[in-house]
C-alpha cells in the first residue's frame, strides 16, 4: 500500500514535469511577444502590441505568410490526391507487392530530414527547380505523402472488401466503384491527411533552407533569419499567432467530432 502510493506520486510528478517541459517554451513566447522593448526580452515598464502591429503591417512578413499558405494549400491538395490514389490502389490489390509498396512509401519518415534535403538539393539542381515555388511544393509533397497514405489506409482498414464487389456486381465499372464507393469511405482519412500535409509543409524549414535562395520566402524561413540577423520580438508575435491559430483549429475539430 505504502509502496503503491509512493509509486503513484512519483508517476504523477513525472507526468506533470513532462507536461510543463513541453508547454513552457510556448508560454515564454507569449510574454516576450508583448515586450515593450525592441529586442527579445520580457516586458519591462508595460505591455505593448507594437510587434503584432509590425507583423500585420510589414509587407515582408505578410508576403512570407502568404507564400507559406499558398505552398501549404498546394502541397495539401497534391499530396492528398496522390496519397489517396496510392492507398486506394494498394487496398484494391492487397497482395504481397502492395504491402511492399506501402512500406517503401512510408520509409521517408525514417530518413533524417537533413539527408532528405540533401537528396532533394542534388536532384533539384539538375531539374532547375532550385529557388522556385514549384520546387518547394514538389519537395513538400513528397515529405507529406506518407502522412496522407497512412491516414487513408487507416480509413480503409474497416471497409468490407465485399463492398466494392457488391458495386461491381450491381453493374459499376472499376472506375465508378472507386469514385462512388471507395473514395467516400476514405473521405475521413483524406481530410485528416490533407490537414497533416498542410501542417507538414507549413512548418517545414530544412528543405526550404536547402532549396531556396531569395525568390521563395516562407514563414519558418523568415523566423529563422529573424533570429540570426536581428533580435526582433516580432518573431515571438508570429509564433504566438500561429500557436493560437493551431489551438483554435484543434478545438473546432474536436468539438465537431463530439457532435
Amino acid at each position: 500500500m505504502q509502496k503503491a502510493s509512493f509509486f503513484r506520486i512519483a508517476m504523477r510528478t513525472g507526468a506533470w514535469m513532462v507536461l510543463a517541459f513541453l508547454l513552457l517554451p510556448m508560454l515564454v513566447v507569449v510574454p516576450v511577444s508583448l515586450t515593450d522593448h525592441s529586442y527579445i526580452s520580457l516586458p519591462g515598464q508595460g505591455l505593448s502590441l507594437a510587434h503584432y502591429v509590425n507583423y500585420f503591417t510589414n509587407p515582408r512578413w505578410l508576403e512570407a505568410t502568404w507564400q507559406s499558405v499558398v505552398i501549404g494549400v498546394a502541397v495539401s491538395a497534391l499530396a492528398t490526391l496522390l496519397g489517396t490514389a496510392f492507398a486506394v490502389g494498394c487496398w484494391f490489390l492487397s497482395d504481397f507487392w502492395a504491402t511492399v509498396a506501402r512500406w517503401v512509401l512510408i520509409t521517408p519518415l525514417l530518413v533524417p530530414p537533413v539527408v532528405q534535403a540533401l537528396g532533394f538539393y542534388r536532384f533539384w539542381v539538375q531539374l532547375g527547380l532550385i529557388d522556385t515555388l514549384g520546387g518547394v511544393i514538389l519537395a513538400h509533397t513528397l515529405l507529406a505523402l506518407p502522412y496522407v497514405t497512412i491516414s487513408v489506409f487507416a480509413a480503409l482498414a474497416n471497409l468490407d472488401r465485399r463492398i466494392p464487389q457488391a458495386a461491381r456486381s450491381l453493374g459499376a465499372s472499376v472506375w465508378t466503384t472507386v469514385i462512388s464507393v471507395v473514395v467516400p469511405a476514405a473521405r475521413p482519412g483524406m481530410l485528416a491527411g490533407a490537414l497533416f500535409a498542410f501542417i507538414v509543409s507549413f512548418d517545414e524549414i530544412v528543405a526550404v533552407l536547402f532549396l531556396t535562395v531569395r525568390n521563395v520566402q516562407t514563414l519558418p524561413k523568415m523566423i529563422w533569419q529573424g533570429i540570426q540577423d536581428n533580435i526582433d520580438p516580432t518573431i515571438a508575435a508570429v509564433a504566438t499567432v500561429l500557436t493560437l491559430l493551431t489551438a483554435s483549429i484543434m478545438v473546432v475539430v474536436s468539438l465537431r467530432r463530439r457532435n
Partner: protein
Amino acid sequence: MTAPSSPSVLSIRKAVKRYGTVQALGGIELDIGEGEFLTLLGPSGSGKTTLLTAIAGFTGLDEGRLVLRGKDITDLPPDRRDFGMVFQGYALFPTMNVRNNIAFPLKVRKWKPADIQARVEECLALVQMEGFADRMPSQLSGGQQQRVALARALSFRPSVLLLDEPLSALDKKLRADLQWELKDLHRKLGVTFIYVTHDQDEALSMSDRIVILKDGLVQQIGEPGALYNAPRTTFVADFLGKSNFLDVEVEGFAGGRARCRAGGESFEVATEAPPAGGRGRVALRPERIRLAPPKGAAFEGAIRQTSYLGERCHVILDHPGFGQILVSCPTWKSGVVPEDGLPVSFDWDADACVFLEDA
C-alpha cells in the same frame, strides 16, 4: 433427377480453381434451370463461395467455361454479367442511405430519375421496407439490412440472383421468417436463385434442387426429398440429416428385397439391385426406427442415453451386434417412454434402409 426440369439458363462446364495446392473447385459440371431455386450445400471450405464468386465473375477459373443462355461469359467482368448478388454480411454501401443503395444499380445503368424513383419504391414494397428509404444502413437491424441488400440486388431485374449465406448472421426465428419470404419472392418473381448455405435445414426447406459439394467436387444433385431419401454416399447421408450406418452382407435377393446380415441379425432391404460382391453399406434414418417394449419388435437392445428436444426425442440404443443406434421418435407417440438404461426392442421397414455406393 439430376437435370433441371426447365431449359438451362446457366451451364458450368468443368470448372476448376486452385489456390496453391488447394483445389477449391475440382471440375464442377452443373446446369441451372430457368427460374430454378438451386442451393449449393456443403461444409465450410467445400468451395461454395468459390463457385458462386466464379459465377459472379470475381474469381477467375483456371479451367472450364461458364455459358449463359448459349453465350460464353467466362471472360466477362462482373459488371457486365447482370447477375444480382446478395453478399454474406450484406455489403450495403455505408455512405449511402437505403434509397441510394437501391438506386445505385439503376444510376449506373443511366435510368431516368423518375423511373429510378418509381422502381425504388416498388423494390422497397417488395421487401416490406416502405418508410425506411431515408435511413442509413447503420440505423437498420440485421434483418432489415438483409432486406435492403435483397431489394438492391433485385432492383435492376437481373435474370439470376446469387446469394451467399444471406441468412447466416441472423437469429433462428428471423431466419425462419426470411426463409418463407425468400421462397415467396422467388415464386412471385420467377428469377433464378443460386443460393449458398452450409445449413441443411435451410437447403431442404427452400430449394427446388440441392447440389451437395465436398472438397470442390459435386457429391450428389437432386430434389430435397430425393436426396434425403436416397443418399448415394456416406457423406451425403451423414451431412443431409443424420444417419445410422450398417455394413451388411447380402445373402439373397428376390422380389426387390435383399436379405441382409449385420451384427448377427438379419433383415430385408428394399432395393432394385443389391451391390455386386455381396457386401455393402446401408444408411438408416433415425426417425425410421420404431421403438417397442421388450419382445415387441425384431431386435432387442437397451437405451443408453436420451435427449429431449421438445417435439422429438433422440435416443441412443445399445445393441450387441449393431453397436450404437440413434433413434429419433416423436415425443407424442413413442412406443415406449424413453428412459436411460431401459431395455427395449426395435425394428424398421424394409424401405427404411438405403444402399450406399461408397461401401
